[in-house]
Protein backbone atom coordinates (compact mmCIF):
# COMPACT_ATOMS: atom_id res chain seq x y z
CA UNK A 1 0.00 0.00 0.00
CA UNK A 2 1.14 3.53 -0.64
CA UNK A 3 1.71 6.38 1.76
CA UNK A 4 -0.55 7.15 4.70
CA UNK A 5 -1.94 10.29 3.03
CA UNK A 6 -3.19 8.40 -0.01
CA UNK A 7 -7.04 8.64 0.08
CA UNK A 8 -7.50 5.12 -1.34
CA UNK A 9 -5.16 3.78 1.33
CA UNK A 10 -7.02 5.68 4.05
CA UNK A 11 -10.36 4.32 2.87
CA UNK A 12 -9.08 0.74 2.65
CA UNK A 13 -7.60 0.89 6.12
CA UNK A 14 -10.93 2.04 7.46
CA UNK A 15 -12.93 -0.61 5.61
CA UNK A 16 -10.56 -3.56 6.20
CA UNK A 17 -11.69 -4.43 9.75
CA UNK A 18 -15.35 -3.87 8.83
CA UNK A 19 -15.11 -6.29 5.90
CA UNK A 20 -13.25 -8.87 7.96
CA UNK A 21 -15.62 -8.54 10.90
CA UNK A 22 -18.65 -9.02 8.64
CA UNK A 23 -17.11 -12.15 7.10
CA UNK A 24 -16.13 -13.65 10.45
CA UNK A 25 -19.54 -12.88 11.93
CA UNK A 26 -21.23 -14.68 9.03
CA UNK A 27 -18.81 -17.51 8.21
CA UNK A 28 -16.59 -18.00 11.26
CA UNK A 29 -13.04 -19.16 10.40
CA UNK A 30 -10.90 -16.11 11.16
CA UNK A 31 -8.02 -17.62 9.22
CA UNK A 32 -9.79 -18.06 5.87
CA UNK A 33 -11.78 -14.82 6.22
CA UNK A 34 -8.59 -12.93 6.94
CA UNK A 35 -6.84 -14.28 3.83
CA UNK A 36 -9.91 -13.45 1.76
CA UNK A 37 -9.99 -9.88 3.12
CA UNK A 38 -6.33 -9.41 2.26
CA UNK A 39 -6.97 -10.62 -1.29
CA UNK A 40 -9.81 -8.15 -1.66
CA UNK A 41 -7.61 -5.33 -0.36
CA UNK A 42 -4.86 -6.22 -2.81
CA UNK A 43 -7.36 -6.28 -5.67
CA UNK A 44 -8.58 -2.83 -4.60
CA UNK A 45 -5.06 -1.44 -4.37
CA UNK A 46 -4.34 -2.45 -7.96
CA UNK A 47 -7.74 -1.63 -9.48
CA UNK A 48 -9.09 1.45 -7.69
CA UNK A 49 -6.32 3.90 -8.55
CA UNK A 50 -6.75 2.98 -12.24
CA UNK A 51 -10.51 2.53 -12.51
CA UNK A 52 -11.66 4.85 -9.78
CA UNK A 53 -13.14 4.02 -6.37
CA UNK A 54 -16.41 2.06 -6.76
CA UNK A 55 -19.57 3.83 -5.64
CA UNK A 56 -20.09 1.18 -2.98
CA UNK A 57 -16.54 0.34 -1.88
CA UNK A 58 -17.49 -1.73 1.14
CA UNK A 59 -19.84 -3.94 -0.85
CA UNK A 60 -17.21 -4.24 -3.60
CA UNK A 61 -14.63 -5.49 -1.10
CA UNK A 62 -17.09 -7.91 0.48
CA UNK A 63 -18.00 -9.34 -2.91
CA UNK A 64 -14.38 -9.91 -3.90
CA UNK A 65 -13.57 -11.33 -0.47
CA UNK A 66 -16.50 -13.74 -0.60
CA UNK A 67 -15.49 -14.88 -4.07
CA UNK A 68 -12.02 -15.57 -2.76
CA UNK A 69 -13.44 -17.38 0.24
CA UNK A 70 -15.48 -19.61 -2.06
CA UNK A 71 -12.41 -20.31 -4.24
CA UNK A 72 -10.58 -21.30 -1.10
CA UNK A 73 -13.35 -23.66 -0.03
CA UNK A 74 -13.61 -25.16 -3.51
CA UNK A 75 -9.91 -25.95 -3.52
CA UNK A 76 -10.26 -27.64 -0.17
CA UNK A 77 -11.45 -31.02 -1.42
CA UNK A 78 -12.35 -32.44 1.98
CA UNK A 79 -14.94 -29.76 2.48
CA UNK A 80 -15.96 -29.17 -1.06
CA UNK A 81 -19.52 -30.34 -1.19
CA UNK A 82 -20.74 -29.14 2.16
CA UNK A 83 -19.18 -25.70 1.86
CA UNK A 84 -20.19 -25.07 -1.72
CA UNK A 85 -23.78 -25.66 -0.91
CA UNK A 86 -23.58 -23.38 2.10
CA UNK A 87 -21.72 -20.71 0.17
CA UNK A 88 -24.10 -20.71 -2.75
CA UNK A 89 -27.06 -20.62 -0.45
CA UNK A 90 -26.16 -17.42 1.35
CA UNK A 91 -23.64 -15.55 -0.74
CA UNK A 92 -24.81 -13.11 -3.37
CA UNK A 93 -22.05 -12.46 -5.88
CA UNK A 94 -23.16 -8.96 -6.80
CA UNK A 95 -22.64 -6.13 -4.32
CA UNK A 96 -25.80 -5.73 -2.30
CA UNK A 97 -27.13 -2.65 -0.58
CA UNK A 98 -27.07 -4.46 2.73
CA UNK A 99 -23.33 -4.91 2.35
CA UNK A 100 -22.86 -1.20 1.88
CA UNK A 101 -24.20 -0.33 5.29
CA UNK A 102 -21.51 -0.22 7.94
CA UNK A 103 -21.81 -3.29 10.13
CA UNK A 104 -22.97 -3.17 13.68
CA UNK A 105 -20.15 -1.19 15.29
CA UNK A 106 -19.67 -4.00 17.78
CA UNK A 107 -18.26 -6.15 15.00
CA UNK A 108 -15.02 -4.20 14.67
CA UNK A 109 -14.78 -4.03 18.43
CA UNK A 110 -15.35 -7.79 18.70
CA UNK A 111 -12.57 -8.28 16.15
CA UNK A 112 -10.18 -6.14 18.20
CA UNK A 113 -11.02 -8.04 21.40
CA UNK A 114 -10.48 -11.32 19.56
CA UNK A 115 -7.04 -10.26 18.27
CA UNK A 116 -6.03 -9.19 21.78
CA UNK A 117 -7.21 -12.43 23.37
CA UNK A 118 -5.45 -12.86 26.73
CA UNK A 119 -4.37 -16.42 25.85
CA UNK A 120 -2.05 -15.04 23.14
CA UNK A 121 1.47 -13.75 23.74
CA UNK A 122 1.94 -9.98 23.39
CA UNK A 123 3.89 -10.39 20.13
CA UNK A 124 1.06 -12.53 18.71
CA UNK A 125 -1.58 -10.01 19.83
CA UNK A 126 0.38 -7.19 18.20
CA UNK A 127 0.89 -9.02 14.90
CA UNK A 128 -2.72 -10.13 14.62
CA UNK A 129 -4.11 -6.70 15.53
CA UNK A 130 -1.97 -4.97 12.91
CA UNK A 131 -2.97 -7.48 10.28
CA UNK A 132 -6.67 -7.99 11.00
CA UNK A 133 -7.72 -4.60 12.40
CA UNK A 134 -4.97 -2.46 10.90
CA UNK A 135 -5.26 -4.07 7.46
CA UNK A 136 -1.48 -4.18 7.02
CA UNK A 137 0.14 -6.87 4.90
CA UNK A 138 2.40 -9.46 6.51
CA UNK A 139 5.32 -7.93 4.60
CA UNK A 140 4.64 -4.50 6.05
CA UNK A 141 4.36 -5.83 9.60
CA UNK A 142 7.56 -7.85 9.17
CA UNK A 143 9.44 -4.78 7.94
CA UNK A 144 8.10 -2.72 10.83
CA UNK A 145 9.48 -5.23 13.34
CA UNK A 146 12.70 -5.95 11.43
CA UNK A 147 12.01 -9.67 11.08
CA UNK A 148 11.90 -11.77 7.91
CA UNK A 149 8.49 -12.00 6.25
CA UNK A 150 8.39 -15.78 6.74
CA UNK A 151 8.90 -15.31 10.49
CA UNK A 152 5.99 -12.86 10.72
CA UNK A 153 3.78 -15.12 8.59
CA UNK A 154 4.44 -17.99 11.03
CA UNK A 155 3.73 -15.73 14.00
CA UNK A 156 0.37 -14.67 12.55
CA UNK A 157 -0.58 -18.24 11.66
CA UNK A 158 0.24 -19.43 15.17
CA UNK A 159 -1.74 -16.54 16.64
CA UNK A 160 -4.81 -17.58 14.65
CA UNK A 161 -4.37 -21.19 15.78
CA UNK A 162 -4.12 -19.89 19.34
CA UNK A 163 -7.49 -18.19 18.97
CA UNK A 164 -9.07 -21.39 17.68
CA UNK A 165 -7.57 -23.37 20.58
CA UNK A 166 -8.73 -20.83 23.14
CA UNK A 167 -12.28 -21.41 21.93
CA UNK A 168 -12.85 -17.65 21.74
CA UNK A 169 -16.22 -16.66 20.39
CA UNK A 170 -16.63 -13.77 17.98
CA UNK A 171 -18.42 -11.50 20.40
CA UNK A 172 -17.86 -8.81 22.96
CA UNK A 173 -16.66 -10.05 26.33
CA UNK A 174 -19.40 -10.22 28.99
CA UNK A 175 -19.95 -6.91 30.81
CA UNK A 176 -18.24 -8.04 34.02
CA UNK A 177 -15.07 -9.03 32.16
CA UNK A 178 -14.87 -6.16 29.72
CA UNK A 179 -12.62 -3.91 31.84
CA UNK A 180 -9.89 -6.57 32.11
CA UNK A 181 -10.09 -7.38 28.42
CA UNK A 182 -9.99 -3.69 27.54
CA UNK A 183 -6.82 -3.34 29.64
CA UNK A 184 -5.17 -5.93 27.40
CA UNK A 185 -6.36 -4.17 24.23
CA UNK A 186 -4.99 -0.83 25.47
CA UNK A 187 -1.65 -2.35 26.44
CA UNK A 188 -1.32 -3.96 22.99
CA UNK A 189 -2.02 -0.62 21.28
CA UNK A 190 0.43 1.16 23.59
CA UNK A 191 3.05 -1.50 22.81
CA UNK A 192 2.66 -0.80 19.09
CA UNK A 193 2.97 2.94 19.72
CA UNK A 194 6.12 2.58 21.81
CA UNK A 195 7.77 0.29 19.30
CA UNK A 196 7.34 2.98 16.67
CA UNK A 197 8.35 5.73 19.04
CA UNK A 198 11.67 4.23 20.13
CA UNK A 199 12.76 2.60 16.88
CA UNK A 200 14.12 5.64 15.10
CA UNK A 201 17.35 4.33 13.62
CA UNK A 202 17.98 4.64 9.94
CA UNK A 203 15.76 5.12 6.93
CA UNK A 204 13.87 1.84 6.50
CA UNK A 205 12.38 1.27 3.08
CA UNK A 206 8.69 0.29 3.18
CA UNK A 207 8.64 0.66 6.94
CA UNK A 208 5.14 1.34 8.14
CA UNK A 209 5.03 4.06 10.74
CA UNK A 210 3.90 2.09 13.81
CA UNK A 211 3.33 5.24 15.85
CA UNK A 212 0.79 6.62 13.38
CA UNK A 213 -0.74 3.18 13.03
CA UNK A 214 -1.22 2.90 16.81
CA UNK A 215 -2.82 6.36 16.91
CA UNK A 216 -5.13 5.38 14.06
CA UNK A 217 -6.23 2.23 15.92
CA UNK A 218 -6.82 4.08 19.20
CA UNK A 219 -8.85 6.70 17.30
CA UNK A 220 -10.96 3.86 15.95
CA UNK A 221 -11.38 2.42 19.43
CA UNK A 222 -12.25 5.88 20.78
CA UNK A 223 -15.00 6.22 18.17
CA UNK A 224 -16.39 2.84 19.25
CA UNK A 225 -16.07 3.49 23.00
CA UNK A 226 -16.29 7.27 23.48
CA UNK A 227 -17.44 6.88 27.08
CA UNK A 228 -14.28 5.19 28.37
CA UNK A 229 -11.86 7.50 30.16
CA UNK A 230 -8.81 5.29 29.66
CA UNK A 231 -9.39 4.94 25.91
CA UNK A 232 -9.58 8.72 25.70
CA UNK A 233 -6.57 8.99 28.01
CA UNK A 234 -4.47 6.69 25.83
CA UNK A 235 -5.37 8.64 22.68
CA UNK A 236 -4.45 11.91 24.44
CA UNK A 237 -1.19 10.39 25.72
CA UNK A 238 -0.17 9.23 22.25
CA UNK A 239 -0.99 12.58 20.63
CA UNK A 240 0.77 14.62 23.32
CA UNK A 241 3.87 12.39 23.12
CA UNK A 242 3.99 12.06 19.36
CA UNK A 243 3.67 15.85 19.02
CA UNK A 244 7.34 16.11 20.02
CA UNK A 245 8.52 13.73 17.33
CA UNK A 246 9.79 16.40 14.87
CA UNK A 247 12.17 17.67 17.58
CA UNK A 248 13.18 14.32 19.09
CA UNK A 249 15.95 13.45 16.64
CA UNK A 250 18.65 15.34 14.78
CA UNK A 251 18.80 15.01 10.99
CA UNK A 252 21.43 12.27 11.47
CA UNK A 253 19.04 10.23 13.60
CA UNK A 254 20.68 10.95 16.96
CA UNK A 255 18.44 11.54 19.98
CA UNK A 256 17.67 14.97 21.44
CA UNK A 257 16.60 14.85 25.10
CA UNK A 258 13.41 16.69 26.07
CA UNK A 259 15.20 19.61 27.75
CA UNK A 260 17.27 20.33 24.61
CA UNK A 261 14.46 20.06 22.06
CA UNK A 262 13.49 22.98 19.81
CA UNK A 263 9.94 23.45 21.07
CA UNK A 264 8.93 25.52 18.05
CA UNK A 265 9.08 22.26 16.09
CA UNK A 266 6.48 20.51 18.20
CA UNK A 267 3.19 19.71 16.49
CA UNK A 268 0.81 22.36 17.84
CA UNK A 269 -2.32 20.78 16.32
CA UNK A 270 -1.61 17.40 17.94
CA UNK A 271 -0.98 19.09 21.31
CA UNK A 272 -4.23 21.03 21.06
CA UNK A 273 -6.18 17.87 20.23
CA UNK A 274 -4.55 15.96 23.08
CA UNK A 275 -5.31 18.73 25.57
CA UNK A 276 -8.95 18.89 24.46
CA UNK A 277 -9.37 15.13 24.84
CA UNK A 278 -7.72 15.21 28.24
CA UNK A 279 -9.87 18.13 29.47
CA UNK A 280 -12.90 16.11 28.38
CA UNK A 281 -12.02 13.24 30.74
CA UNK A 282 -11.42 15.39 33.82
CA UNK A 283 -13.88 14.63 36.58
CA UNK A 284 -15.99 12.46 34.31
CA UNK A 285 -14.26 9.14 34.71
CA UNK A 286 -12.36 7.26 37.40
CA UNK A 287 -8.69 8.26 37.18
CA UNK A 288 -6.59 5.72 35.27
CA UNK A 289 -2.93 5.37 34.42
CA UNK A 290 -3.20 6.52 30.81
CA UNK A 291 -5.05 9.69 31.80
CA UNK A 292 -2.38 10.51 34.39
CA UNK A 293 0.44 9.83 31.95
CA UNK A 294 -1.33 12.04 29.41
CA UNK A 295 -1.60 14.79 32.03
CA UNK A 296 2.17 14.54 32.64
CA UNK A 297 2.87 14.77 28.90
CA UNK A 298 0.53 17.77 28.76
CA UNK A 299 2.47 19.65 31.47
CA UNK A 300 5.68 19.17 29.44
CA UNK A 301 3.98 20.21 26.20
CA UNK A 302 2.54 23.37 27.75
CA UNK A 303 5.91 24.65 29.01
CA UNK A 304 7.28 27.27 26.60
CA UNK A 305 10.86 26.41 27.67
CA UNK A 306 12.39 23.51 29.57
CA UNK A 307 13.15 25.84 32.49
CA UNK A 308 9.51 26.91 32.67
CA UNK A 309 8.32 23.31 33.23
CA UNK A 310 5.93 23.03 36.16
CA UNK A 311 7.88 20.30 37.97
CA UNK A 312 5.88 20.41 41.25
CA UNK A 313 2.78 19.62 39.18
CA UNK A 314 4.59 16.75 37.42
CA UNK A 315 5.83 15.41 40.76
CA UNK A 316 2.27 15.44 42.12
CA UNK A 317 1.06 13.55 39.05
CA UNK A 318 3.80 10.92 39.46
CA UNK A 319 2.75 10.53 43.10
CA UNK A 320 -0.76 9.75 41.83
CA UNK A 321 0.57 7.40 39.17
CA UNK A 322 2.66 5.54 41.73
CA UNK A 323 -0.47 5.00 43.83
CA UNK A 324 -2.68 3.66 41.02
CA UNK A 325 -0.09 1.85 38.87
CA UNK A 326 3.16 1.40 40.79
CA UNK A 327 6.18 0.14 38.87
CA UNK A 328 9.95 0.63 39.02
CA UNK A 329 9.73 2.72 35.84
CA UNK A 330 7.29 5.08 37.54
CA UNK A 331 9.62 5.44 40.53
CA UNK A 332 12.46 6.20 38.13
CA UNK A 333 10.47 9.00 36.48
CA UNK A 334 9.36 10.29 39.87
CA UNK A 335 13.04 10.53 40.87
CA UNK A 336 13.65 12.83 37.88
CA UNK A 337 10.69 15.01 38.88
CA UNK A 338 11.87 15.06 42.50
CA UNK A 339 15.36 16.09 41.40
CA UNK A 340 13.87 19.02 39.53
CA UNK A 341 11.84 20.14 42.53
CA UNK A 342 14.28 19.47 45.40
CA UNK A 343 17.65 19.04 43.72
CA UNK A 344 19.66 16.15 42.24
CA UNK A 345 20.60 14.68 45.64
CA UNK A 346 16.93 14.11 46.52
CA UNK A 347 16.45 12.35 43.19
CA UNK A 348 19.55 10.21 43.72
CA UNK A 349 18.31 9.19 47.17
CA UNK A 350 15.05 7.95 45.64
CA UNK A 351 17.01 6.04 42.97
CA UNK A 352 18.90 4.40 45.82
CA UNK A 353 15.67 2.69 46.93
CA UNK A 354 15.54 0.98 43.53
CA UNK A 355 18.99 -0.55 44.03
CA UNK A 356 17.55 -2.78 46.70
CA UNK A 357 14.80 -3.89 44.36
CA UNK A 358 16.38 -6.80 42.53
CA UNK A 359 13.71 -7.16 39.85
CA UNK A 360 13.74 -5.84 36.30
CA UNK A 361 14.72 -2.40 37.61
CA UNK A 362 18.35 -3.11 37.09
CA UNK A 363 17.91 -1.79 33.61
CA UNK A 364 20.14 0.60 31.76
CA UNK A 365 17.59 3.35 32.41
CA UNK A 366 18.42 3.38 36.07
CA UNK A 367 22.07 4.04 35.23
CA UNK A 368 21.18 6.57 32.54
CA UNK A 369 19.06 8.61 34.97
CA UNK A 370 21.69 8.23 37.67
CA UNK A 371 24.28 9.58 35.24
CA UNK A 372 22.17 12.68 34.56
CA UNK A 373 21.54 13.38 38.23
CA UNK A 374 25.20 12.78 39.21
CA UNK A 375 26.29 15.14 36.45
CA UNK A 376 23.96 17.82 37.76
CA UNK A 377 25.22 17.22 41.30
CA UNK A 378 28.80 17.74 40.07
CA UNK A 379 30.04 14.15 40.57
CA UNK A 380 31.48 13.98 37.06
CA UNK A 381 33.61 10.84 37.39
CA UNK A 382 30.72 8.85 38.89
CA UNK A 383 28.36 10.30 36.28
CA UNK A 384 30.64 9.12 33.50
CA UNK A 385 30.80 5.59 34.94
CA UNK A 386 27.00 5.48 35.16
CA UNK A 387 26.61 6.63 31.53
CA UNK A 388 29.09 4.00 30.35
CA UNK A 389 27.33 1.25 32.33
CA UNK A 390 24.04 2.32 30.75
CA UNK A 391 25.63 2.41 27.27
CA UNK A 392 26.86 -1.16 27.69
CA UNK A 393 23.48 -2.39 28.89
CA UNK A 394 21.09 -0.74 26.43
CA UNK A 395 19.73 -2.61 23.42
CA UNK A 396 18.81 0.55 21.52
CA UNK A 397 21.48 1.78 19.12
CA UNK A 398 20.46 5.49 19.05
CA UNK A 399 20.30 5.46 22.83
CA UNK A 400 23.70 3.79 23.08
CA UNK A 401 25.19 6.47 20.85
CA UNK A 402 23.60 9.21 22.92
CA UNK A 403 24.96 7.72 26.17
CA UNK A 404 28.47 7.29 24.73
CA UNK A 405 28.45 10.97 23.76
CA UNK A 406 27.26 12.06 27.20
CA UNK A 407 30.07 10.01 28.79
CA UNK A 408 32.71 11.32 26.39
CA UNK A 409 31.93 14.91 27.40
CA UNK A 410 32.86 14.05 30.97
CA UNK A 411 36.09 12.17 30.25
CA UNK A 412 38.99 13.03 32.47
CA UNK A 413 41.83 11.69 30.36
CA UNK A 414 42.46 13.73 27.22
CA UNK A 415 43.14 11.89 24.03
CA UNK A 416 42.55 13.30 20.56
Amino acid at each position, binding site marked *: MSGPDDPVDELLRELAPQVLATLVRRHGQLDACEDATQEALLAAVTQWPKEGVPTRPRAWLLTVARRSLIDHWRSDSARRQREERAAEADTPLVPSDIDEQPPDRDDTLALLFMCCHPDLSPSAQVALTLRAVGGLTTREIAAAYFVPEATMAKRITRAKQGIVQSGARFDLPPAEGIADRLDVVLSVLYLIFNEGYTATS*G*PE*LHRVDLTSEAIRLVRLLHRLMPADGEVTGLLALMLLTDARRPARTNP*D*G*SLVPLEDQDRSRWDVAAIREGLTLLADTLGRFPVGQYQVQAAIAAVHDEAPTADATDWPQILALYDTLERIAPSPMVTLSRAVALANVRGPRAGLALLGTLDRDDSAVRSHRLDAVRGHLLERAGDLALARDAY*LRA*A*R*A*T*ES*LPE*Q*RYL*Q*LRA*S*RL*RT*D*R*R*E
Partner: protein
Amino acid sequence: MKYMIMMFGGAGASMEGRSPEWISGMHALMMGLDAQLRESGELVDSRKLADPTQAKTVRFVDSKAAPTDGPFAEIKESLAGYWIIEATEERALEVAAQCVDYIEYPMEVRPIMDEQPPPS
Protein backbone atom coordinates in the same frame (compact mmCIF):
# COMPACT_ATOMS: atom_id res chain seq x y z
CA MET B 1 29.16 -13.27 -3.84
CA LYS B 2 28.01 -12.35 -0.34
CA TYR B 3 30.53 -11.15 2.24
CA MET B 4 30.20 -10.64 5.95
CA ILE B 5 32.12 -7.65 7.25
CA MET B 6 32.63 -8.06 10.98
CA MET B 7 33.41 -5.48 13.65
CA PHE B 8 34.79 -6.42 17.04
CA GLY B 9 35.02 -4.99 20.52
CA GLY B 10 32.59 -3.66 23.13
CA ALA B 11 30.89 -0.29 22.98
CA GLY B 12 33.17 1.03 25.66
CA ALA B 13 36.43 -0.64 24.70
CA SER B 14 37.24 1.20 21.46
CA MET B 15 36.01 4.59 22.66
CA GLU B 16 37.53 4.88 26.08
CA GLY B 17 38.87 8.42 26.36
CA ARG B 18 37.79 9.54 22.89
CA SER B 19 36.47 13.08 22.40
CA PRO B 20 32.78 13.79 21.70
CA GLU B 21 33.83 14.96 18.21
CA TRP B 22 35.62 11.67 17.53
CA ILE B 23 32.61 9.65 18.70
CA SER B 24 30.17 11.76 16.67
CA GLY B 25 32.46 11.31 13.67
CA MET B 26 32.41 7.54 14.12
CA HIS B 27 28.60 7.44 14.41
CA ALA B 28 28.34 9.57 11.26
CA LEU B 29 30.77 7.31 9.39
CA MET B 30 28.90 4.12 10.35
CA MET B 31 25.46 5.51 9.57
CA GLY B 32 26.70 7.05 6.33
CA LEU B 33 28.17 3.75 5.16
CA ASP B 34 25.03 1.93 6.18
CA ALA B 35 22.86 4.34 4.18
CA GLN B 36 25.22 4.18 1.21
CA LEU B 37 25.19 0.34 1.11
CA ARG B 38 21.41 0.31 1.47
CA GLU B 39 20.93 2.92 -1.23
CA SER B 40 23.18 1.10 -3.70
CA GLY B 41 21.34 -2.18 -3.16
CA GLU B 42 24.50 -3.92 -1.94
CA LEU B 43 23.28 -4.36 1.63
CA VAL B 44 21.74 -7.75 2.46
CA ASP B 45 21.62 -7.38 6.23
CA SER B 46 23.23 -5.26 8.89
CA ARG B 47 23.09 -5.70 12.65
CA LYS B 48 24.82 -4.25 15.65
CA LEU B 49 25.04 -6.60 18.63
CA ALA B 50 24.44 -5.52 22.21
CA ASP B 51 27.60 -5.03 24.27
CA PRO B 52 29.52 -8.27 24.93
CA THR B 53 29.00 -7.76 28.68
CA GLN B 54 25.34 -8.62 27.94
CA ALA B 55 26.34 -11.97 26.41
CA LYS B 56 25.90 -15.42 27.89
CA THR B 57 27.91 -18.44 26.79
CA VAL B 58 26.45 -21.93 26.93
CA ARG B 59 29.14 -24.44 27.84
CA PHE B 60 29.19 -28.20 28.27
CA VAL B 61 29.86 -28.61 32.00
CA ASP B 62 29.48 -31.81 34.06
CA SER B 63 27.87 -33.68 31.17
CA LYS B 64 25.28 -31.02 30.42
CA ALA B 65 24.80 -27.62 28.83
CA ALA B 66 25.06 -24.74 31.28
CA PRO B 67 24.75 -21.01 30.52
CA THR B 68 27.36 -18.69 32.03
CA ASP B 69 27.67 -14.90 31.94
CA GLY B 70 29.96 -13.25 29.45
CA PRO B 71 31.16 -13.78 25.91
CA PHE B 72 33.30 -16.71 24.82
CA ALA B 73 36.11 -14.53 23.47
CA GLU B 74 37.99 -11.64 25.04
CA ILE B 75 35.76 -8.57 24.91
CA LYS B 76 37.95 -6.84 22.36
CA GLU B 77 37.81 -9.92 20.12
CA SER B 78 34.08 -10.42 20.55
CA LEU B 79 31.76 -9.77 17.61
CA ALA B 80 30.18 -6.29 17.87
CA GLY B 81 28.24 -6.09 14.64
CA TYR B 82 28.25 -6.97 10.97
CA TRP B 83 27.25 -6.02 7.48
CA ILE B 84 26.38 -8.64 4.91
CA ILE B 85 26.80 -7.23 1.42
CA GLU B 86 26.41 -8.65 -2.06
CA ALA B 87 29.53 -7.39 -3.83
CA THR B 88 33.02 -8.23 -5.00
CA GLU B 89 35.70 -9.02 -2.45
CA GLU B 90 37.47 -5.85 -3.52
CA ARG B 91 34.43 -3.76 -2.64
CA ALA B 92 33.95 -5.54 0.72
CA LEU B 93 37.58 -4.87 1.61
CA GLU B 94 37.19 -1.23 0.61
CA VAL B 95 34.17 -0.81 2.91
CA ALA B 96 36.08 -2.37 5.80
CA ALA B 97 39.11 -0.19 5.11
CA GLN B 98 37.03 2.99 5.39
CA CYS B 99 36.05 1.97 8.93
CA VAL B 100 39.45 0.72 10.00
CA ASP B 101 41.11 3.95 8.85
CA TYR B 102 38.94 5.75 11.37
CA ILE B 103 38.46 3.39 14.32
CA GLU B 104 41.98 1.88 14.16
CA TYR B 105 40.57 -1.52 15.19
CA PRO B 106 40.72 -4.56 12.88
CA MET B 107 37.74 -5.85 10.92
CA GLU B 108 37.25 -9.21 9.24
CA VAL B 109 35.85 -9.84 5.75
CA ARG B 110 34.69 -13.36 4.98
CA PRO B 111 32.74 -14.97 2.10
CA ILE B 112 29.37 -16.51 3.01
CA MET B 113 28.85 -20.11 1.91
CA ASP B 114 26.35 -20.69 -0.88
CA GLU B 115 23.21 -22.64 0.08
CA GLN B 116 22.80 -23.92 -3.48
CA PRO B 117 24.73 -26.96 -4.81
CA PRO B 118 27.21 -25.95 -7.52
CA PRO B 119 25.90 -26.33 -11.11
CA SER B 120 26.92 -29.75 -12.48
